[in-house]
């Protein structure tokens, strides 16, 4: 018997023995609000437990003592206005006891005082975009777990599904305001440790705020079904002390500006086919394969195939346009904002020359720029 149990445990649970511990309860989190929410959660929980013990206690006492096999003779009472009134009023009083702390916490969450930092959070299928309102800094944040981990070809790492390429970095002790919106469907930005969950509605902005008490890495996920890869759009927030945050911000801003300058230089450069194809394949797998699939066949009826597709085999300019600007009203996003010029040129070249798409076309950064500024 012991052997069997051992075997069972090994079969089912061993791969995860070293994974992060799961919390079986809400976590108190790292903000004053999240701690208040945790306290409220526990209060309500204990009240429910107490009521449960009383009611079920009475019921099981009755089940044990008033059973026919013990010779119980049924009483015939079936009404008592007094009792009915009592057990209408008592729950009512308990509810008021619950409503008071709940209202207090809710009002504490509605603090309209000015924020120190404003972050624009924009959801799209299936990534987050962060923009620092007062800085020249914005970036996309995409899941960093490898699709091979998802498909079981690679061992899953510690923070599987909860890691991103560019986390949101925030200072501690400052009031941070989030302005949420979405580019396509409804998403919901949720970080449990802040007790912040707010829907990102397309066309509308929603507001939430937090003041983080402790430095650390906080992870969350999209909490509103948003299509195919809803399960694969994590949120990672790194909270740093102010000085570290300032240093990070300065570095990031400089890098952001440098990258933009570099982009301009790229226009003059010409890349070779090998370089375009190998970079293109990498970019494709990261940004395109989720929908169009690694083999370029897409998902029939949901996401079109690129192999032998009229776009990939047809006019180059049209192809660049679709990739750069997206296709309105479909899941095809505008990658012009998400990828650099080099990546765009490479991935379009790749799409035109992979899986038997033998156009032989090489797309260069300057071609992409030409489309981006088509009008000039």
């Amino acid at each position, binding site marked *: 018997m012991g052997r069997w149990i051992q075997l069972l445990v090994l079969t089912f649970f061993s791969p995860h023995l070293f994974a992060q511990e799961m919390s079986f309860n809400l976590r108190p989190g790292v903000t004053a609000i999240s701690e208040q929410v945790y306290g409220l959660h526990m209060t309500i929980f204990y009240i429910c437990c107490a009521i449960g013990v009383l009611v079920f206690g009475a019921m099981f006492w009755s089940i044990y003592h008033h059973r026919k096999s013990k010779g119980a003779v049924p009483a015939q009472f079936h009404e008592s206005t007094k009792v009915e009134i009592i057990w209408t009023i008592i729950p009512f009083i308990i509810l008021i006891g619950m409503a008071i702390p709940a209202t207090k916490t809710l009002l504490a969450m509605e603090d*309209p*005082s*000015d*924020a120190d930092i*404003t972050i*624009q959070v*924009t959801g*799209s299928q299936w990534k987050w975009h962060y923009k620092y*309102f*007062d800085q020249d800094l914005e970036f996309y944040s995409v899941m960093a777990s490898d699709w091979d981990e998802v498909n079981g070809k690679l061992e899953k790492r510690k923070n599987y599904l909860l890691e991103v390429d560019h986390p949101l970095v925030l200072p501690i002790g400052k009031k941070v305001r989030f*302005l949420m*919106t979405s*580019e*396509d469907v409804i998403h919901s930005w949720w970080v449990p440790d802040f007790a912040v969950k707010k829907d990102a*509605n*397309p*066309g*509308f*902005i*929603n*507001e939430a705020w937090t003041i983080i008490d402790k430095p650390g890495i906080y992870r969350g996920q999209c909490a509103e079904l948003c299509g195919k890869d809803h399960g694969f759009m994590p949120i990672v927030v790194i909270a740093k002390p102010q000085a570290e945050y300032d240093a990070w911000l300065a570095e990031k801003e400089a890098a952001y500006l440098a990258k933009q300058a570099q982009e301009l230089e790229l226009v003059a450069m010409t890349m070779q086919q090998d370089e375009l194809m190998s970079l293109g394949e990498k970019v494709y797998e990261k940004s395109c394969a989720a929908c169009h699939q690694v083999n370029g066949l897409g998902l029939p009826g949901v996401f079109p195939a690129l192999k032998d597709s009229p776009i990939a085999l047809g006019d180059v300019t049209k192809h660049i346009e679709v990739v*750069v*600007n*997206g*296709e*309105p*009203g479909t899941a*095809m*996003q*505008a990658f*012009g*904002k998400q990828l650099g010029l080099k990546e765009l040129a490479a991935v379009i070249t790749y799409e035109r020359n992979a899986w038997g798409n033998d156009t032989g076309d090489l797309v260069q950064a300057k071609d992409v720029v030409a489309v*981006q*500024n*088509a*009008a*000039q």
Partner: protein
Amino acid sequence: MLGHRRLVVRLLLVVVAMFGFGYALVPLYDVFCKVTGINGKTAKTASEVSMATDEQRIVTVEFISYVPQGLNWKFGPKVNRVKVHPGETLQVDFSASNFTARRGTVQAVPSVSPGLAANHLKKVSCFCFEQQTLAPGEQQDMPLFFYVAPELPEDINTLTLAYTLFAVEGAELNESETAQTRADGEVSNDAAL
């Protein structure tokens, strides 16, 4: 007691009425939004200029713009934020540029946060009241005249006005037509809009 037939007819009337009520929720919701400020919807028509100005108070108004994917336009406010006295009318210019090779029409959809402030952001005139059409490569300054109503709740000191630019569907449908007519020279597309 009603007969079967009359009772069924009455119940069917309830069903029809409730189906209608489902649709009535659409305008009802708009009214509800206006009253409570859900989703920060602002009025779609111009307001009168305010008579009174509250010199004692200063409110920060922030501007945000969103251009969704698939629209190769640039669009944004010339300033990120302004400080105003409630009641004081200000002009803020938004700049829009059409980077596509096509004439295009857009509609800016406003949203205000916090929602309760939406009723108090009064627009005297706004580019968002009507659709905007730009020729390829055209850049245009689009003005917004607004003031913050002095009745703005005391505890709100900052409000954010976001505009999301949406391509107008009808104009898009005419894209192919536009492409064809372009060859014959700049035929007016205004008829199509």
